[in-house]
């Protein structure tokens, strides 16, 4: 079984971080199914992964936030003949101010980052539990570690997802499968293109991709990416509210 090509399903495969991970899996000869909502982009990524060495790279175009997760995943996994990794990568940052003033905008962030992602996670957990093998890898965020005025709607969606994945990890640990939550810090991707000055704490997607691929094999259940964020967030969580509330973080 170790020699067989890894079967990987990526939800939100057009994400820069997901693509970086996919390139590594492709180089190792994996069989990938890319799920996303932009056909032309999925096509470009699939072609690239094929040249890089993927045993297969196909795609399914759908909106992850509104699709029937259970049914779609079942079809994909049946086609692959089982699955070794399910990566849940899609997400939206949203705009904090808009989310505060427009309830639909906040609901949209929750629907994409939490409600729909949770459905995919639960569907994947059922598959992995039945197989008694495989790993669910989910991209959360350090923003879920403490609510901050600048992005707590996004943060809450990722925090909720984090607890869900933690629970799934607990459940699967007793069934021979795994779940891992990746918590990236600042990553230089289209999602953060608006941030003009990117300092020392910013990582390239390639670095996070490498961490994801490793985490799919072993370790976890919570992986900060890169690791330094474990300590940064520890400090941030420990700052007393009396002090924290005086910042604009």
């Amino acid at each position: 079984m170790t020699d067989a090509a890894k079967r990987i399903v990526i939800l939100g495969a057009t994400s820069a971080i997901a693509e970086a991970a996919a390139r590594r899996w492709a180089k190792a000869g994996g069989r990938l199914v890319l799920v996303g909502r932009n056909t032309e982009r999925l096509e470009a990524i699939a072609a690239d992964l094929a040249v890089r060495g993927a045993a297969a790279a196909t795609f399914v175009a759908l909106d992850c936030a509104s699709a029937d997760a259970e049914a779609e995943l079942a079809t994909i996994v049946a086609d692959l003949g089982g699955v070794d990794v399910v990566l849940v990568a899609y997400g939206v940052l949203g705009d904090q101010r808009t989310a505060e003033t427009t309830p639909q905008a906040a609901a949209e962030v929750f629907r994409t980052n939490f409600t729909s992602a949770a459905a995919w996670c639960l569907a994947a957990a059922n598959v992995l539990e039945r197989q008694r093998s495989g790993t669910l890898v989910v991209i959360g965020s350090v923003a879920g570690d403490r609510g901050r005025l600048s992005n707590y709607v996004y943060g809450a969606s990722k925090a909720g997802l984090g607890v869900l994945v933690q629970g799934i990890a607990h459940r699967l640990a007793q069934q021979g499968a795994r779940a891992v939550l990746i918590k990236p810090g600042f990553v230089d991707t289209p999602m953060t293109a608006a941030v003009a000055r990117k300092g020392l704490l910013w990582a390239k997607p390639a670095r996070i991709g490498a961490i994801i691929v490793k985490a799919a094999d072993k370790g976890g259940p919570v992986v900060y990416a890169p690791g330094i964020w474990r300590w940064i967030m520890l400090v941030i969580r420990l700052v007393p509210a009396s002090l924290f509330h005086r910042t604009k973080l």
Partner: protein
Amino acid sequence: MFRPAFRDQLPAATQSNTVSSVLATGLLRSYGDSCLNGPGGLIDMTGLDRLIAFDRTTGRLVVEAGISLSDILKIVVPHGWFLPTTPGTRFVSIGGAVANDVHGKNHHRAGSIGCSVRALGLVTAGERRTIGPDAEAALFAATIGGLGLTGIIEWVDLQLVPVPSSRLDVEIIPYGSLDEFWAIASESVVSHEHTVAWIDCMSGGAHTGRGAFTRANWATDGVYEAHSDASWKAVPVEFPSIALNRLTVSAFNEVYFRAHQLQRRRQLQHYATYFYPLDAVSSWNRLYGRRGMLQYQCVIPPGGDRGVIRSLLDRIAKSGQASFLAVLKTFGERTSPGLLSFPRPGSTLALDFPNRGVETLALMRTLDAIVAEAGGALYPAKDGRMPAPMFRQSFPRWREVAACKDPRVNSDFWRRVSLDD
């Protein structure tokens, strides 16, 4: 600065009215102002680094324009393919390489990279077009070596060459004078695929042009190993500018030359060692101190080139302005489709000078006069200062390129050389 992640974003990026003009940039390895656009915006192409297709049996490679030559080689070398030609660094994008129609040590066989481009995707005037030698040939010719002016190169369809090994059989031949250089060069272009000479710029008189000639052919061992990007040396701090004065360069050249002179050598070298010696030393340009360096690369047409190269080298030796790296190579006859291509039959001399301000610029003006008189040209990829009339004289088809220019595109270089005085 906009960094597209997907090709479909390009048409809108060029039409964006938040900037007065745009310019595509690659890995910014050009030295002058051809990759700058002061008043306008830049489109950083390095996020478009995907492979589109690679046929392992025919060596046809189609890639997005922002991919580096380094990444291309990692993919194709293990299958026995190599770039048709390569500049002295692998950290350039394929789009940038096409936009400067780059040349390598095998110009006498392969011509410049434009000779191996089968087709290009070009975003021009807001439209995505496919151009090639047989499709919109005029626009294609204006785009090869076109300095990004005709639009944004979206993808490149390139014919690779099969190689019998990832190593080369390299011969290093020390020689003592320019006459010897010409003799070795004319013999080597017949026997060797790759030729170039490193020149000791500090010695004048009878020793003018002495140096080390290297020539190589691919080895035939059938072993294919791609390079790794881990660099083995680093120049940690900036040298004080003074460190690289005439004496140190002279000593450096002497040591380098002597080291080579000890004996004529022949060795097997990996392609990364042979083609990209500077890539192994990260931030090697720090050697030049904070003021950096100025590049000067000219081509002198055949006929008068021997005398002209001698007078250029004599001027430099007399000026006492140290050139750390000086490279001399003869170009072949193969012409590229590019209207603004720099490579043309003759000899090319590439120099880099530590920037000593006015003094260095004055020397370059003296060299300009010699080059212009000889009917030569300067390489735009390494130029930030050539006078507009010199550009127009040495790139006589520039108006045809101007006619194909995307009105939304501009660069500092173009504003400088196309401005009517």
